[in-house]
C-alpha cells in the first residue's frame, strides 16, 4: 500500500511539473506577443458578437477588431490592458455597449465560457484578475486548467507557423445566415432565440459593470479615447419591452454620462443586412464598416452620440 501511494505521488509530481512548465512557458510566450499586429492600427474594437460581426477591419482598416462572441467586459479588459501596456499606436477604443451587456443574462461569466476561455486568457491575467475569476467560479476554473496544454500547443504552433488571420483573441467574423423570419416568430411567441439571449430581467450584472468601470479607468489613465458603441439592431428587438432599451438608456445617463456613447442601434440599415436581430451579416458588415471608414468616429459621435 505504501509503495502504491509513494509511486502515485511521485508519478503525480512528475505530471504536475511537466504541466506547470507548460503553463509557465505558454504564459511567457503570450506575454511576449503583441495582440496588435500592425503599427497602422490606431483603433481597437472590443466586445461581443454584435460588434464582432459588424466591423470588418479589412475595410475599416486603421482598426483591429479583437472582439469575440459572447465576450464579457472581463475579457475585453484583459485584452485592453495588454494592448495598452504594449508599445503600439492605438489611441481609440470602440467597446460594445448594449442592454444585454449590462443586464444579467447569466452567460457572460458562465461556467461554460470560463471553461472554454480560461486557457486562452490566463496569460493576460494578473493575480487580481485570476482571483476574481477563481472566486467567482472556482470549479469552472479548475476544470479549465487541463485545457492549457491543448492551448499551449496551438500557441506554440502559431508562433512558428503564424496563421494568416489569428482568431485566438477574437477578430471579425463574417456571417452569411438570415434567420430574421424565424427569430421574429420566436419573439412574438416569447420563445428562446438562437444566437442571442434576452436578459432575464433588468437586474444589473454587477461583475460586468465592475470590469466596464475598470476599462473606463484604464483608458482614462492611459489617456486613450474610449467610445461605447451600440451596433445596428433590428427595430422589432428595440421595441420589445423585455430587451430593456429604456432602462438601458436610463442606466447610461445615470452612471456613464461622461463616457462617449455612440448609439447606432437605430441606424438606417436595410433588413437584408441583418443575420438576425442583433448581428449584421456579410452584406451588413460591409456597409457598416464602409460607413465607419468614410465617416470619422468623431462625426458619428456628433450625429449619434447620446448626450
Amino acid at each position, binding site marked *: *500500500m505504501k509503495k*502504491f501511494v509513494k509511486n502515485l505521488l511521485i*508519478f503525480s509530481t*512528475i505530471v504536475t511539473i*511537466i504541466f506547470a512548465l507548460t503553463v509557465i512557458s505558454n504564459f511567457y510566450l503570450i506575454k511576449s506577443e503583441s495582440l496588435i499586429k500592425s503599427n497602422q492600427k490606431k483603433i481597437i474594437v472590443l466586445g461581443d458578437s454584435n460588434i464582432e460581426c459588424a466591423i470588418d477591419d479589412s475595410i475599416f482598416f486603421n482598426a483591429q477588431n479583437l472582439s469575440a462572441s459572447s465576450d464579457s467586459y472581463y475579457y475585453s479588459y484583459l485584452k485592453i490592458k495588454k494592448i495598452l501596456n504594449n508599445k503600439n499606436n492605438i489611441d481609440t477604443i470602440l467597446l460594445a455597449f448594449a442592454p444585454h451587456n449590462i443586464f444579467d443574462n447569466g452567460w457572460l461569466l458562465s461556467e461554460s465560457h470560463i471553461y472554454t476561455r480560461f486557457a486562452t486568457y490566463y496569460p493576460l491575467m494578473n493575480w487580481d484578475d485570476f482571483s476574481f475569476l477563481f472566486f467567482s467560479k472556482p470549479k469552472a476554473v*479548475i*476544470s479549465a486548467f487541463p485545457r492549457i*496544454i*491543448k492551448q499551449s500547443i496551438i500557441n506554440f504552433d502559431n508562433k512558428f507557423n503564424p496563421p494568416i488571420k489569428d482568431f485566438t483573441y477574437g477578430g471579425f467574423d463574417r456571417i452569411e445566415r438570415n434567420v430574421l423570419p424565424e427569430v421574429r416568430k420566436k419573439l412574438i411567441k416569447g420563445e428562446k432565440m438562437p444566437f442571442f439571449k434576452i436578459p432575464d430581467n433588468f437586474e444589473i450584472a454587477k461583475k460586468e459593470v465592475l470590469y466596464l468601470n475598470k476599462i473606463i479607468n484604464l483608458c482614462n489613465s492611459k489617456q486613450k479615447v474610449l467610445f461605447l458603441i451600440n451596433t445596428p439592431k433590428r427595430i422589432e428587438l428595440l421595441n420589445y419591452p423585455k430587451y430593456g432599451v429604456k432602462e438601458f438608456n436610463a442606466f447610461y445617463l445615470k452612471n456613464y454620462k461622461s463616457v462617449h456613447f455612440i448609439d447606432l442601434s437605430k441606424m438606417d440599415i436595410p433588413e437584408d443586412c441583418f443575420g438576425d436581430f442583433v448581428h449584421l451579416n456579410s452584406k451588413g458588415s460591409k456597409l457598416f464598416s464602409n460607413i465607419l471608414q468614410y465617416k470619422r468616429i468623431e462625426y458619428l459621435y456628433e450625429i449619434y452620440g447620446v448626450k
Partner: protein
Amino acid sequence: MIFNSLNFALFLPIVFGLYWFGSKGNLKLQNLLLLISSYFFYACWDWRFMFLLVFSTILDFFTGKKIYLSENKRSKLNWLLISIIINLGFLGVFKYYNFFISSFADALSVVGLNVNYFSIQVILPVGISFYTFHGLSYVFDIYKNKIIPEKNFINYSVFVSFFPLLVAGPIERATHLLPQITKKRHFDYSKAVDGMRQILWGLFKKIVIADNCATYVNTIFENYTDYSGSSLLLGAFFFTFQIYCDFSGYSDIALGTARLFGIELLKNFAFPYFSRDIAEFWRRWHISLSSWFKDYLYIPLGGSKGNMWSRIRNTFIIFLVSGFWHGANWTYICWGLLNAIYILPSIIFKTNRKNLEIAAKGKLFPNFHEISAIFITFCLTILAWIFFRSATVIDALSFIKSIFNSSSFTPPDFPGFNLSLKLIFIIIVFQIIEWLGREQNYAIAGIANYANRTLRWMVYISIIFVILIFSGVNQEFIYFQF
C-alpha cells in the same frame, strides 16, 4: 457525477483513502463505506431516485429470502413472480410506458380509432436497467438453487449499488460479485496499478475518441438530409467508434476503479471490432448483458437445443428483447432484429461457435480470410448502428438509402471535415494499439510487462498528455440513458 469529471477526481481518492486507511481492514466498515459512497454517488444524479434504488434493493433482498425459505415450488414461484413483476413494473413505467401507450394509440389510429392517451412526463432514473437486472439475477439464482440468499443487508446492498457499476454496468451476477463482497479484501499492489492503467485507457477512449466522434456524429445524424452519401458513411463510421469507445471506455473505468477496491468485475468488452462473424461479435460486445440474456432468457427458452425453428425463434426473441432493453424506440428493436437476421445463417448452419478465440491468436498479422471476415462483420455492424443512432426508423432507412447513391463517390462535405481527418488518424492508431493488445484484458494491459519503469511511466504520461491535447467536447456517457 460522471467518471471524467472533477467531482469524481475528488470523490475517488477520498473513498479510496478512507477504504484502505480509515477502515483498517475491517470488512464491515469497508462495505458500509462502499454503500454510503455508492448512495452518495447515485444521489449526485438525482437524490429522489435513491428511494427507487433502495426500494428495489429491499424488494430483492426480501423476496430472495422468501424464495429460499419457501417449502414448496408453488410458493417459490409466487415470490419469484412478485419480484419480477415489481422490478419489471418499475422499469415498464419509467422506461416503456410512453412507448407502449403511444404505439397502441398509433395502431388504433390506423384502423380509424383516434384515442387521447395519457403520457407521463418523467425522467428515466439513471441506471435503472442495470440495477434492476442485478437484482433479478440474484432472485433467479436463488430460485434455481445456484446460491443461497445473502444474510447481511449491507453486503447485498453493496452488490446492487457498488458505485463503479451502478449506472452503466457491467451487469454483475450474485455468484460472481457477492462472494467478493463478503470475503476479506487485501490491497494488492499490482492489481491497483492495473486498475489505474485501465482507468487511464478508459479515459483515453472516452475523452479522445468518443467525445471527438460525437461532435461529427451529432452534426451528420441530425442534418443527414443535407449531406452526401460519403459524409453519411463517415458519420456512421464515427458513431461505430463513438459507441464502442464511450461504452467500453466507461466499462474500463468501472473495472479499473473496482480493482482499486480489491474487487474484480465481469469483463464487458473483448475487442468486438476484430470479430470474424456476428456471433463472435456478440460474445465480445457488452458481454455482461449478452450472457445475462443467455443465462436467464435464452437457455430457459430452450437455447440451442431443440429443432432449427425453436433455435431461430429463441435467437429472434433474445435479440428483440436485447434491442428493447436499450430503449423504448422502434429503432432499438430494428437494431436487435437486424442483428438477429445477421446471426441467422450461423444458427442454421451451426457455425455460431466457430470463432471462439481472438482473431490471429499468437500472430502479428491476420491472414486474408481473417481480414475479409473482420471487414465484412465490421461493415454489417456499422449498418446496424445506423438504426441505433437514428431518431426514427424512417430516418435510419433514409440515411442508409442516401449512403447507397452516387454521392458516396464524392468527397465528404460536412462542416469540419478537414479537422475530422485528424480524428480518423487517431482512430487508426487506436485500432493498431487495440490489435497489438487484443490478447490482453484491455489493449494496454501489456505495458505491465515492460521491465523498465521509466519506459512504462513515459507511456502513461504520453497518454495523459494525448488526452489533454485531443480532448473533445465533454459528452455524457451514451449508456446512461439506458
